[in-house]
């Protein structure tokens, strides 16, 4: 088992390397740079910008710098948090300095943020939303599937499966605005946009306050996302259960 996990992890590393190399190369193959705009940019200024982001270096060197910033930890006596170009996700104070690890680099879109900042601020929200949507799809889908299987060909079966068809056919981009319109705009029960938690997050991913307000914001997005997968889970559960229920050992257990 552990050999299997290690092998999978190694393959993941290789895949990541290849994908990142391809993406990196493609970004530089497209004509036009990140600093092109309608207004004229003086050549000297462009040179400065390129030097700041190391865009004037050979491509292989840029890629090597990128990967080493992410993978290799380094020791530094400069206090973390001041420079935008040297911003690390993990800073462990050791003696007079810090061991710093994982710098994904600055971003072109903002001069005061780094890619790490974007991760720290937005990844937790996605994790929270995704986890809740998954839990919802499980909580709705599995019981529905079980009921449909056990009471096959009755009302519950038809009801469960029609709900499943609905969930699978209605795409999120249709369900979302409908929910927003009914509950947000017309009834004004739930807020149409926004999220109930903001950075800083507990352990980097959990919301700092969980109260009724948090769930008010979360309800519609979680339903919109969870309904589709719950439908699939329901059908899957029903089918698997039906298969197992007919097995001989079940009949024996009942007897």
């Amino acid at each position: 088992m552990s050999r299997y996990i290690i092998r999978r992890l190694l393959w993941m590393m290789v895949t990541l390397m290849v994908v990142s190399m391809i993406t990196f190369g493609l970004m530089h193959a497209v004509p036009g740079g990140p600093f092109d705009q309608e207004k004229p940019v003086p050549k000297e200024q462009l040179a400065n910008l390129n030097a700041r982001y190391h865009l004037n270096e050979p491509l292989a060197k840029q890629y090597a710098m990128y990967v080493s910033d992410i993978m290799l930890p380094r020791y530094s006596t400069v206090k973390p948090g001041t420079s935008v170009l040297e911003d690390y996700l993990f800073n462990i104070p050791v003696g007079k300095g810090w061991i710093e690890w994982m710098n994904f680099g600055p971003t072109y879109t903002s001069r005061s943020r780094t890619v790490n900042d974007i991760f720290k601020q937005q990844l937790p929200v996605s994790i929270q939303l995704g986890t809740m949507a998954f839990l919802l799809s499980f909580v709705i889908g599995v019981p529905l599937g079980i009921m449909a299987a056990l009471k096959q060909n009755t009302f519950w079966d038809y009801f469960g499966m029609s709900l499943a068809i609905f969930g699978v056919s209605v795409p999120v981009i249709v369900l979302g605005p409908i929910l927003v319109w009914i509950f947000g705009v017309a009834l004004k029960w739930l807020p149409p946009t926004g999220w109930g938690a903001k950075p800083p997050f507990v352990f980097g991913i959990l919301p700092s306050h969980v109260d009724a307000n948090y769930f008010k914001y979360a309800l519609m997005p979680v339903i919109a996302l969870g309904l589709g997968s719950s439908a699939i889970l329901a059908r899957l559960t029903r089918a698997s259960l039906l298969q197992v229920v007919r097995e001989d050992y079940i009949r024996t257990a009942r007897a």
Partner: protein
Amino acid sequence: MLGKKMSILLVAVLALSMVLSACAAPAPQTIERVVTQVVEKQVEKTVIQTQVVEKKVEVMVTAVPSPKPAGPKILRVAQGPGDIPTLDPGLGEDTHSIQWVNEMTIGLTRLSDDTKVVPGMASSWDISTDGLTYTFHLRDNVPWVKWDANTNQVIKVQGCPDADGKTADRLVTAQDFEYSILRALKPETASPYAYVLSFAIAGADDFNTGKVTDTTTVGVKAIDPKTLEVTFKEAAAYNANIIGLWTAHAVPQWLIAGDDCTEARGERWIETGFNQSYGPFALKEWVHDANATFVKNPFWPATPEIPSPKVDEIYEVFLDPSPAFAEYEAGNLDWTRDLLGSDLDRIKGDPTLSKELKIAPSMSTYYYGFNTKAPLVDDARVRRALSLAIDRQALIDNVLKANQEPAGWFCRPGLAACPTPKDYPDLGVKYDPAKAKQILDEYLKEKNTTADKLDLTLMFNTSSGHQKIAEAVQQMWKTNLGLDVKLVNQEWKVYLKTTKDPKNTPQIFRMGWNLDYPDANNFDREVAAFGGSQNPKEGGGFNWKNDKYEELVKAAAVELDPKKRTDLYSQAEQVLVWDDPAMAPIYWYTRASVTKPYVQRTFSNTGDEHYEFWDVPAAK
């Protein structure tokens, strides 16, 4: 298939939703402030008796239970889409950043809502006899402030302690402005709008391109904390306008570079917790990609042009136009703009929403430029025919739908010195298909060819909006002139390169221009004239040099009489769009916005709103 119980439940939900949506929103109450705020803390009679001599009047009022103080006035806005790119004045380049930079910091001069130059941080300025040196006299009572999360209020920033350990408030001085302008011009800062300052200020160009590193060669000097002397290259009419550009607003040097008692924050100085400003509003909290909260700066000394804000707080949420409008309808936003065309039809038809809708001019022009050296369009007759054959009003009515204005020329009426259709009714180009056909036929006869043999390409940057307009114009050119024009589109960054490439600029290309500062010079000279951003010296863009036009815009730049100046620009525009056309102007932008009836607001033509004039009822 649904059971009977389910159907009844569904009907009940639908009926309930219809009933609830018809309920009117409760009318906002105005809660009167009671003057006796001080007394609220003293309810025990014994305390008051000891002060009966000083506060005799209040004794009588203590019998009345102190009323609940009025809630704060919170204005909820959405100016997105997307996050504010930066709050650093030197780095701002788009309307979202500029909106808040203009509220948190004030330039030496400022633009009023109707685009007139008024005093900002400089209460007055003297102009030398040759028109080149401006001496600005600054106000000396504007402190730097920041939001203090511990006490939950805006506090004044303290300077470093002196020998006795005492600290004083940091005030905005001329040295701050000198530092900020030099910082914006420094090549290392890579400020996208420094080029406007380097066009105007003496010595700024060489400093900005790195040819010179000595800052004393730049024409900006702080004589003393209250006086700033700026030397310009030309005695231009718009000098006072340019020095008020957001790029030249003051930034806190001690916070960016650090000093004895302040830790250097570098480029992160604008973030929550560090941000320092001095304008009518200060930053309380900025949650990237989500929302931002700005609070009233109580230490902003109200000036006649920039009063103290009436609202206590502005809460901005970053949303795309569609969810922003959903929030507006849900009652969570007090106003919104950038409405989608599909929503506009519904708004105009709705009785409540149509009253809340206002369509105001926006200072931008949309045009189709010509590469005047490319085959076929190098002949002025072809260009004129193409321009005349576009039915601009039909485009606006059927494709654009936001009451835009058909553009007769390039600069946008409303800018300083730009001719308006009211004053110049015969200026520029208007839809005239018969005349267009006549001009083209002349050309075809001379070249002994027919319209369908002409090979023309129209290029635009990829967007569904531009696609619709291009298809409509392609149809107009086919119907009115018999031309078969090919449409090509490219992604924006690639398109920018193509349209500036001397070899590849297409015959007809779509472009727009949004003002940098509200003066016709920005459009006519800095974009269209030879060496301008759409007409580079190295070639590409219009590839156009017309001596008469160059003369006219140079003269108009330094002409101080407004009427004469507008006349000069009208003559220049006639050359630009008719005599030797470099472009076919299509429409002048407008901005549609909806505002709740309880908001007292002003409308600004400059592209950003001045929230210090707005008022909303207090929160309950």
